[in-house]
C-alpha cells in the first residue's frame, strides 16, 4: 500500500501529514524536484522580500518527516509516469511503484512573449529560489517594474514600495485584479497603491524590454512610453504544471482533470491544489483554484479517501487572503464576471464587503478590512444556507448579525 506524492508544496506535504494522521500504515514517499526544504509560499511575495527578513518559514520541522515516517526525497524530479504499470520514473532513471499516486504539481508563472524577456534583471517569482533572487536584486535596485496587476504582482509591488523603491506596475486591462474581484475591491486596492506611491500604468501592455550589456535598463510600453528599470518582475498569471500527467495520457484541460473525489482519469491517481481542475460546486464548469486553503483541504480529502475509501465528494468553499499596505482583503467563494454585486459597508473608508450573486444566490463575498464579514460569509456559504439577494439588499442588513440569527437552521 505505497502512496507516492509528487510535489512537496503546501498540498503535497499536507497529503503526507494527513495520511499519517488518518492512520495510513503503508509507506509514504514524498518527492520534489526542488532541493529546498518544504516552505510556506504566501510570504515569498510579501514580507520575505523586505529588508531584514529572515529565511523562509518551513511547513513542518525536519523531525516531523522522520517521526511520521514520511520518506521525503528532495531534488528528485519525476520525469515520467506509467499508469498501466503503476510506476513513476525519476530523472536519474530510477523508478518507484505505487498503490496510490497523488499529483501535487503546483503551477508556474506564465511566460511573457516579448523581446528582451531574457535580459538579466527580468525575473519571476514562483519558488523560494526565485524569491531569494528578487530579494537580492531588490536590495540594490532603484526602479522596479511589475508586469501584471493580479494578486502576485500587486503584493510584490507593495513589498517593493515598502522597501522604499520607485515602483511602476503595468497592467493591460483598465483596472487591476480584473478577473479576481469585483470593481469596488480593485478600486480600493488601486487607491491604496496610488496613495503609497505605486505608479499604476493601466490599459497598456509591455512592448519590449531594453538593456545594456545584457542587463535590463528600461521597459517600453505599447503606448510608446519608456519606464526606467533595474528590476522587472513578470507576474502575468500561472499555468498548471500538468506536463507529467499529460504525457502519461491522463485527461488534462487547464490542469489535471479530476472528478468530485479528486481522482484523475486513472482512479489510482489523484490530483490536488494548483495543478488540479475540479468540478465547481455552484456551476457546471471545471475550475482550477490557486490558493493555500484549496491545496490543504483537497489534500486532506484525498488522504481520507486513500485511507478510508470513497466517502463524500470534495465540497469546500475556497477562501483566500492578501495583505497589502493597510488593506486586508479576504475572499470566500468564487465569483464570475456576470455576478450581481451588492456592497455592504464603507468603500470610501476602505472597510466594506462585496456580496456576489448568481441567480439571486450568494456565491462569493470579498471583504476589505472586514474580517467579521469574511468569517460570517465563510460560515454561511459552508452551511449552504446563504441569504438571497433581496435579503442582503434590504436596509440595515449585516452579515455577522445574519449569520448569528440563522445558527441552528442548518
Amino acid at each position: 500500500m505505497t502512496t507516492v506524492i509528487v510535489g512537496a508544496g503546501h498540498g503535497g506535504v499536507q497529503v503526507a501529514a494527513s495520511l499519517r494522521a488518518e492512520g495510513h500504515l503503508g509507506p509514504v514517499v514524498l518527492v520534489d524536484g526542488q532541493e529546498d526544504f518544504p516552505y510556506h509560499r504566501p510570504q515569498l511575495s510579501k514580507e520575505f522580500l523586505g529588508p531584514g527578513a529572515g529565511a523562509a518559514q518551513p511547513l513542518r520541522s525536519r523531525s516531523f518527516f522522520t517521526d511520521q515516517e514520511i520518506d521525503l526525497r528532495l531534488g528528485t524530479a519525476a520525469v515520467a509516469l506509467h499508469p498501466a504499470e503503476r510506476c513513476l520514473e525519476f530523472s536519474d532513471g530510477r523508478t518507484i511503484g505505487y498503490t496510490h499516486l497523488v499529483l501535487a504539481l503546483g503551477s508556474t508563472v506564465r511566460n511573457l512573449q516579448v523581446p528582451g524577456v531574457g535580459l538579466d534583471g527580468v525575473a519571476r517569482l514562483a519558488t523560494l529560489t526565485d524569491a531569494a533572487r528578487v530579494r537580492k536584486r531588490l536590495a540594490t535596485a532603484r526602479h522596479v517594474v511589475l508586469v501584471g496587476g493580479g494578486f502576485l504582482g500587486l503584493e510584490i509591488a507593495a513589498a517593493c514600495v515598502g522597501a522604499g523603491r520607485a515602483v511602476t506596475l503595468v497592467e493591460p486591462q483598465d483596472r487591476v485584479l480584473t478577473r479576481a474581484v469585483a470593481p469596488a475591491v480593485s478600486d480600493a486596492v488601486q487607491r491604496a497603491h496610488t496613495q503609497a506611491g505605486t505608479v499604476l500604468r493601466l490599459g497598456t501592455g509591455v512592448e519590449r524590454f531594453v538593456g545594456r550589456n545584457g542587463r535590463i535598463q528600461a521597459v517600453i510600453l505599447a503606448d510608446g512610453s519608456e519606464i526606467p528599470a533595474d528590476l522587472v518582475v513578470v507576474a502575468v498569471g500561472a499555468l498548471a504544471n500538468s506536463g507529467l500527467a499529460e504525457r502519461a495520457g491522463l485527461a488534462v484541460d487547464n490542469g489535471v482533470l479530476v472528478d468530485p473525489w479528486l481522482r484523475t482519469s486513472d482512479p489510482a491517481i489523484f490530483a490536488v491544489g494548483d495543478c488540479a481542475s475540479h468540478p465547481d460546486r455552484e456551476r457546471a464548469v471545471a475550475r482550477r483554484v490557486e490558493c493555500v486553503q484549496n491545496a490543504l483541504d483537497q489534500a486532506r480529502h484525498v488522504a481520507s479517501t486513500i485511507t478510508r475509501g470513497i466517502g463524500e465528494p470534495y465540497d469546500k468553499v475556497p477562501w483566500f487572503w492578501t495583505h497589502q499596505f493597510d488593506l486586508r482583503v479576504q475572499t470566500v467563494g468564487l465569483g464570475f464576471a456576470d455576478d450581481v454585486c451588492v456592497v455592504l459597508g464603507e468603500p470610501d473608508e476602505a472597510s466594506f464587503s462585496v456580496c456576489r450573486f448568481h441567480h439571486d444566490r450568494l456565491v462569493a463575498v470579498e471583504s476589505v478590512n472586514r474580517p467579521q464579514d469574511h468569517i460570517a460569509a465563510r460560515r454561511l456559504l459552508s452551511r449552504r444556507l446563504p441569504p438571497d439577494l433581496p435579503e442582503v439588499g434590504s436596509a440595515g442588513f449585516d452579515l455577522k448579525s445574519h449569520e448569528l440569527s440563522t445558527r441552528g437552521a442548518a
Partner: protein
Amino acid sequence: MPSLTFVLPDGTRRTVEGKAGLSVMQVAMAEDVPGIVAECGGNAMCATCHVYADAATADRLPPVTDVEDEMLDSTASPRTSSSRLSCQVDVEEDWGDTTFVVPDTQL
C-alpha cells in the same frame, strides 16, 4: 530562557524552550506540537493556531488586537476569555514559565 508548556487535547504536556522574537505558533510548529495547524502561516487570516492561555500566563501576554479579536470569532473550538491566536503572541525573554492549552480541533 522562557519556557512554554502545551497541554494537548489528550492531557499530555509538552514543555519546550521559547525564543524571544518568535511567535508562540512558530515555536509550536518548530517543536512539532500537535494540534497547531497555522494554515495561513501566521497572518491572523485563518484562526487555526488557536490556544487557551492559562490564567497566570494570560496576564503576561499583549492585549488582543481588533483583527485578532474578529478572527477569534471563527475558531473551530469554542472561544473563551482565554482564547488567543498563537501567531499573534510573540514570546518575550522575561516570560518565565507559561502554559497554553491546545484545543480539541482547529478545523
